[in-house]
């Protein structure tokens, strides 16, 4: 209880009717504790940015939110993560369905070695979201459209996805995530492998996606956090130090560590 009230002093985790929440979340890799009592609310249809120096646990936290840490051996988690009020670590929750509701985009573009079409169709196919070829075509087209990629690839849907440029591949991965109609999209440094022009396009896309999806993005670039997010959470050494409106975090941080990090004194 002491830990909760302490972190509550520096951070403001609670908002009215959050899409997702984390409460007293602790995570251990074997004997190393990577997250300490994290309490954070994710607001629906907003972009929440997670910032902090390397190794501060922000990616680990992100991967807790759709249980991607389940695939790693020796990870123990305690605490609670909820989606629409239901604990996602509940035994009755099916990870497969959970991940269909909470999509993920990774640091390095990772298209499957298949055609562009098959990459986007992958999710709808395995989840049985469509009954006919026409429906599938439509989902693929709208997803590519939403990811801002349709114009560039509509004449070569059957060519291999690995032939696309890095930025196009990343937008394809976003289209692939969008195709299963998730409610939340988690993005783990989605622009770190991209050049500035491709980055600008992806950021623009994130801003557009905000109207339909709840987005959580991990980023190393504070400018990016300032540009795309409405709320920002600052992590340091496995602890959530401060969370609030992005403007407030960048102009008037309450914690000295946050101030130090965003003014570039450490990190």
């Amino acid at each position, binding site marked *: 209880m002491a830990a909760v009230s302490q972190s509550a002093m520096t951070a403001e985790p609670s908002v009215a009717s959050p899409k997702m929440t984390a409460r007293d979340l602790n995570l251990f890799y074997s004997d190393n504790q990577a997250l300490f009592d994290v309490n954070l609310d994710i607001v629906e249809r907003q972009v929440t940015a997670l910032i902090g120096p390397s190794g501060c646990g922000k990616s680990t936290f992100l991967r807790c939110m759709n249980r991607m840490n389940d695939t790693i051996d020796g990870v123990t988690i305690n605490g609670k993560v909820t989606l629409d009020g239901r604990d996602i670590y509940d035994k009755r929750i099916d990870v497969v369905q959970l991940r269909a509701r909470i999509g993920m985009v990774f640091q390095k573009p*990772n*298209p*499957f070695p298949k055609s562009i079409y098959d990459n986007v169709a*992958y999710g709808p196919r*395995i989840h049985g979201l469509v009954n006919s070829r026409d429906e599938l075509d439509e989902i693929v087209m709208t997803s590519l459209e939403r990811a801002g990629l349709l114009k560039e690839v509509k004449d070569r849907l059957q060519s291999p996805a690995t032939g696309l440029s890095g930025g196009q591949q990343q937008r394809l991965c976003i289209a*692939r995530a969008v195709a299963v109609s998730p409610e939340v999209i988690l993005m783990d440094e989605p622009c770190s492998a991209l050049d500035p022009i491709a980055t600008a396009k992806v950021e623009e896309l994130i801003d557009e996606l905000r109207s339909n999806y709840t987005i959580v993005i991990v980023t190393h670039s504070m400018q990016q956090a300032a540009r795309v997010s409405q709320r920002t959470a600052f992590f340091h050494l496995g602890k959530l130090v401060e969370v609030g409106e992005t403007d407030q975090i960048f102009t008037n941080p309450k914690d000295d560590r946050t101030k130090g990090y965003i003014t570039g004194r450490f990190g």
Partner: protein
Amino acid sequence: MSLSFLLLAVAALCALSFYFGRQRAVALSGGRYSNLHSLPAHYGTYVALWCGLPALLLLFVWHTFQGSVIEAMIIADLPAEITSDSGQLSLALNSISLIAAGNGQHLTVSPEVVDAGRRLANLQSIANAALIVVMLCGAVIGVSLSYRKISPELRARNNVERISRWVMIACSAIAILSTVGIVFSLLFEALHFFSKINPLEFLFGLEWSPQTAIRADQVASEGAFGAIPLFVGTLLITVIAMCVAVPVGLFSAIYMGEYASPKFRAVAKPALEILAGVPTVVYGFFAALTVAPFLRNNGAILGLDVSSESALAAGLVMGVMIIPFVSSLSDDVMSQVPKSLRDGSYGLGATKSETIRHVIFPAALPGIVGAVLLAVSRAIGETMIVVMAAGLAANMTVNPLQAVTTVTVQIVTLLVGDQEFDSAKTLSAFALGLVLFLVTLGLNVFALKVVQKYREKYD
């Protein structure tokens, strides 16, 4: 001085010249190695290489030509009545070399031959002594030239690297040339065979019965050299073996790589690989003494007529033998599929088996095809199990319950016979070998093409 002693002496000389070359470089540097173009050890290696390589090259050239030169000298001195007949000449040369080696006491030969034998012994000892002198001269000349060239400006490092590149080229040339040599030795004997038997009859004939008469008065069949039954038998056994090895190997690889706990994997994987270490003769026992009777007895219950030596028994056991090839290699390629692809699939809500089927398996396909084709060539080349379990009868059948034979088995049985070496029967072994070589070569080329075609799609 024997050859090994000579080589040791050259090695010692090399070591000495390394030491002196290095010393001279150190002396020239005046205590600061940075005054030299290369490190002192490079100068030492430079001198040592100039010592060893000329000597070895001379040794090689000398040995290549010594025999034929000395033989020519001996023949030139032999009387015309011996040299005019090639049969007598080779007989005489044989006796001469026996006498020269000191084993000719019991021979009854003409005095000219005895003289020639003594001359041969004489010439050989002269040649050996000359070789030592020539080699040492070569080494000394090489050392003195290179030693004199040592100066701070000498680019010893670059020179050494250039020489070592040539050594590497020579090594790869040996590997390639021996392949070419094998092909040609097969080719010439096969051509010899095809001059006796029509190639079309060999390639498309449907009957294989290589028994020809050994003596003119012997009652025997003409002999039939149609290779089709052998290739059908090989194909049949290979197909049966692959039907066992591919699914079992692949599924065990998937289980080991994707599902098994690290603890189980650490025990089970080596255990599976033990299969690869069992000698094929032991598999042969197993096939002939356990599997074949088992099949025959159970076949009898089902009302099937299984012969006691059957393609099925050999193929099944061969399949078991190949499992570790398939599983080990495909496990390796599947574990090389990047983690990011798995994460991408899990992140979309795919289950483990969906990820394996739709992402990992297609991405690893080129490697898996490679593994399977490697296993196929192993199956085609396997001999021992077939000899013991499938028999020698060249039946033209695709019924796995009958006895069949394979190409390699026939090659062995053809060559262990006691027929003259230039009979059609023996020579046909080379023709079979040539065709088998071409088939496996074609298979390898095909495998490479497949792998290349699919690799482009992958990362």
